[in-house]
């Protein structure tokens, strides 16, 4: 099998999505740590358009954008399937993956801003959470049914990173009483062995993002 390398940065949630997909399918890979404050020639070579991580490098060929990477992984290594085979069910899964991609940045805006901008970001985040709570589960344990699938991986940010954002900013977004299904999903998702073994350390993340937030507020 051709070599698989993953160029990425801790603790990016986009990096972890790819890790989860590779681990769920039992694919061995080499992790190459990127310093985003001093981008390597390798990153600039393999992702000249966006210069972002993660980049999957398979047999020397780069694939960029985490959800494009996940669809590629699913096609090359079909074992432990992460998407439905039926085209209609696949279209529904992709709808929620796109929803996660389009709306999740709001939780990061809560982290990166303050004042009025942050208030709007909180509003947008709550709207996103409400839509997921009301429409996305359909009575299932995971978005993928009894087992996690690509939709669960796409929403993975909500399972750990959202809590860090809440704790660092002091703003509670995911109240258990208002979002019981999401709360339950987070518990179940973090109990899946592959996910449990591949989550960034919470305390390390808290320290990392606390420093970032302090630097941000100092510069404003």
């Amino acid at each position: 099998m051709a070599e698989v390398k993953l160029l990425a940065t801790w603790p990016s949630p986009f990096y972890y999505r790819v890790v989860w997909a590779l681990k769920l399918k039992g694919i061995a890979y080499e992790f190459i740590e990127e310093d985003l404050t001093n981008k390597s020639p390798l990153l600039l070579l393999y992702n000249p358009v966006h210069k972002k991580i993660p980049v999957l490098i398979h047999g020397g060929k780069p694939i960029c954008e985490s959800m494009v990477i996940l669809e590629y992984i699913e096609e090359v290594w079909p074992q432990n399937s992460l998407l439905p085979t039926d085209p209609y069910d696949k279209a529904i899964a992709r709808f929620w993956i796109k929803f996660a991609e389009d709306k999740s940045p709001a939780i990061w805006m809560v982290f990166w801003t303050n004042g009025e901008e942050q208030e709007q970001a909180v509003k947008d985040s709550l709207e996103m959470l409400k839509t997921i709570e009301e429409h996305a589960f359909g009575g299932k344990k995971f978005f993928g049914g009894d087992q996690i699938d690509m939709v669960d991986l796409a929403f993975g940010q909500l399972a750990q990173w959202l809590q860090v954002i809440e704790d660092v900013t002091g703003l509670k977004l995911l109240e258990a009483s208002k979002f019981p299904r999401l709360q339950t999903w987070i518990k179940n998702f973090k109990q899946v062995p592959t996910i449990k073994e591949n989550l960034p350390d919470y305390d390390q993340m808290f320290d990392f993002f606390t420093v970032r937030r302090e630097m941000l507020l100092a510069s404003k």
Partner: protein
Amino acid sequence: MSEEVVLLDFWPSPFGMRMRIALAEKGIKYESKEEDLRNKSDLLLQMNPIHQKIPVLIHNGKPVCESLIQVQYIDEVWHHKSPLLPSDPYQRAIARFWADFADKKMSDLGRKIWATKGEEQANAKKEFIESLKLLEGELGDKPYFGGENLGYVDVVFVPFYSWFYAYEMCGDFSIDAECPKLMAWAKRCLEKESVSESLPDQEKVYGFVLQMKKAFGIE
């Protein structure tokens, strides 16, 4: 087997145009229903409750939303005719990457060009041309992004060509002067009936943009 295909659409929407092209390429017969977006139909609200946007593809009564997802769905269900995505996984990943790039850049920057002024508009124009040049680079010497035939990236990207005249007029710049290769590609696509029948006249789109500017109070 009888297939019932309905498309909820709106004539100037580049997202709707993608579906018109894809359905035509596949030779799929469908019923088109034009939506009035200021007075959305019960059908639209029922079929796309979360976003309430067009286009919506309704296949045998079941809705598929989001144009990039719809094009992939059509490609998978009617896979025996005019394949839009390549069969090789790596080539598919490249196509998905560039379709995503074209979709995000054209939507966001195009809107800024017609809806803003001053520095915001100037920055949008600069980034718009840079994005087009990157797409030109990806096209290279191929007749289409899909190679010898129209592919996924062509279907996703070419609808924005119908808005280029409106962007040029609102932004006071020439896209042709900056990206002649891309303009040649667009004209080549328009030689295909599936594209020429799906894209509205550029002057008509400009008229629509002027109406929108008036309605939103943008000079």
